[in-house]
C-alpha cells in the first residue's frame, strides 16, 4: 500500500515509517498537515495515517481539507491521537478509524490491513 504518515514527533514518525516499510508498504512522511497535503496532492496514496496536534495544520484540519477536495474525498484516514481521541470520534465523517496513543505496533499494522482491505473491497 502507498501510505502517507503525518506526525510532528520525530521518534514516533520514524518508528511508524520503518515498521510500515518492513510490513511491505511504501511510505512517505510529513511533519505537519500542510506538508502532508502537498505530498498527497503530488501522488494520491491509499491511506493517510495522521496525528492530531501538529504545527501549521492539525490532523483535523488536514482531514477537513481532504474531504473538501472532490478528488481526495474517499481517501481513508486513520487518526492516532494521545488526547483528542474523543473529539475525533465525534467526527466520523472525517476519520475512518481512530486509535489512541500509546498503541502497540501490531494494533496499527492490523488497522492498516483492515482499512486497506476496505478500500479494495
Amino acid at each position, binding site marked *: 500500500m502507498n501510505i502517507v504518515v503525518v506526525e510532528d514527533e*520525530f521518534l514516533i*514518525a520514524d518508528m511508524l515509517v520503518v515498521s510500515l516499510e518492513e510490513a511491505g508498504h511504501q511510505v512517505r512522511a510529513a*511533519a505537519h498537515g500542510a506538508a502532508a497535503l502537498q505530498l498527497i496532492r503530488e501522488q494520491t496514496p491509499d491511506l493517510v495515517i495522521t496525528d492530531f496536534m*501538529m504545527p*501549521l495544520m492539525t490532523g483535523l484540519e488536514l482531514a477537513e481539507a481532504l474531504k473538501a477536495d472532490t478528488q481526495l474525498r474517499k481517501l481513508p484516514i486513520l487518526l492516532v491521537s494521545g488526547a*483528542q481521541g474523543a473529539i475525533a470520534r465525534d467526527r466520523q465523517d472525517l476519520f475512518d478509524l481512530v486509535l489512541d496513543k*500509546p498503541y502497540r505496533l501490531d494494533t496499527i499494522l492490523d488497522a492498516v490491513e483492515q482499512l486497506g482491505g476496505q478500500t479494495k473491497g
Partner: protein
Amino acid sequence: MPGLDRILGGGFVEGASYIVQGQPGAGKTILGNQIAFATAQSGRRVLYITLLAETHDRLFQSLSTLSFFDKRHLGEKVTYLSVFQTLSKEGLHAVVSLLRKETKKREASLIVFDGLLNARDQAKTDLDVKTFVAEVQSQAAFAGCTVLFLTSARMEDNSPEHTMVDGVLELHEELVGVRTVRRARVRKSRGSAALGGFHQYEITGEGIALFPRIEAAFGTPSVDDFPDPRPLTTNIEGLDGITGGGLPQGSTTLLVGPSGSGKTSFGINFLAASCAAEPGLLFGFYETPDRILLKAKALGLDLARAIDNGDLEILWQPLTENLLDKLAYRLLDAVSARGVKRLFVDSLGGFERAAVHPPRLVEFFAALTNELRARNVTTVGTWEQRDLFAKEVAAPGPEISSLLDNLIMMRHVEFRSQYRRLLSVLKVRDRSCDAAAQEVIIDGNGLAICGPFEPATGVSTGLAGPLTS
C-alpha cells in the same frame, strides 16, 4: 503559583521572555507544564513546543499523576507541538516562522519552549542562537505573548541567551547530608524586583511549590506594628501575679526546660483560655492532636470543645524532613486564617532541625517573630534543654534568645531526696518581674504555681540543698 510570583516580584511580565534552567530532574518540565495549565485555567491559550525529547503521550502519562494536569485542555487551550523535524530539515529560521504562525493562529499568550539546548546544538555560532532567541521573543512580545525557554544547559551569565532574555530562573537540586534539597533562584529579572538568593521548593502530586525565604519575603512585617501594652492572661494559676498581669500582648516568650519539666502542660494551660476573641493555635512537632487532647484531659482541661467551636486548632508536623520556610508559611497561614491571638509552638527546635543552612536561623526567627508581633499574636515557644538536671542552661544561641521578649525557665530540682518542678520568670518585656524560683504543681487541675520555692542553695544546678546558716 504564589511562591514563584513572590520571588519574581509579581510574576512573569506579559510579553517578556525567560530562561528556566536546571539539570535533568530539577523539575523544569513540571514547572513549564504547571504554568501552562494555570494559564489555560485562566482561559488563555498556550503553545508547548518540544524538540527531541520524550514523546508527547509519554509526557502526558507522567503528567497525569499531577493534579494540575487537565486532559480537557489538551489541543484546546494547551497545544503540544514538536518542531524537531522543522529544525533539522529547515533550520532555526523555519522554527521562528512556525512559532509566529502558530502564535497567531492559536492566539497564544504563553509559549513554553522545552529544549533550548537542542536549538543551541543546531546553531552554527553564538550569533545564530542570539538571533533565534531575539526573533522568537520579539515576535512574541508583539503578540503580547510570554515565552519560557526551558533548558538543561548550565548557561553562564554572559551566555548569548542570558543577555537577550528578561529573566533567568534557575532550578537546582543537591544533596545536603543525606537529604535532597531543591532550591530555586532568580538570576536575572528585568522590570521587576525579584527576591534574590536561594528559595526552597518541593515537587509533590500538586506540582512545584516554592517557599520564598521568610527573611527575604518578610524583610519588614506585612502589617504595621501597633504594640498593645495590655497583658494577656497566661491562664496559669499564680503566674499572672508575678509577671505583671500576664504576658504582654503580641510578645514572644521562650520557655526553656528539659523533657518532663512541664513545658507542654504550660502551653495547654495557655491555650485552654482560647476563645472567640482570642483564637488559639498549637503548632507542634511532637504529639499528634489526639495525644494532646489526652494530655489536656489528664490535666482536667477540655480542649476538644474549643476545637469543635473553632476557638482552637492543633497543627501537627512530624519532626521528619521538613522545609524550614514551608513550616513558617504553614504557621503564618494558620494564624491569618483564624486571626490567632494565642500561639503555642512546641518546639522552636522543630524549625532548627529543618534548617539546611543553620546560620540563617537568626534572620529567620527575627522575620517570623516580627511578623507575629505585628499581627499581635502572643506566642509561647518551647526550647528543649538537653539534660534533665543540668548546670548549664542550653537556650538557643544568644542571637536568637535576644529576639524573644520574655524568658521563662522550667526545671527539675532534686531537694531532700524529692524531685520538684520549678519555674523562674527571668525576663518580661518592658516590665519588672519576680525572678524567684517558683514551685510548679501539675495535677488533674492543670499546671499551677504554688508560690516561691523554699529557700535553698544550688537550685539552678538542679541539685538543691537546704540553706546552711
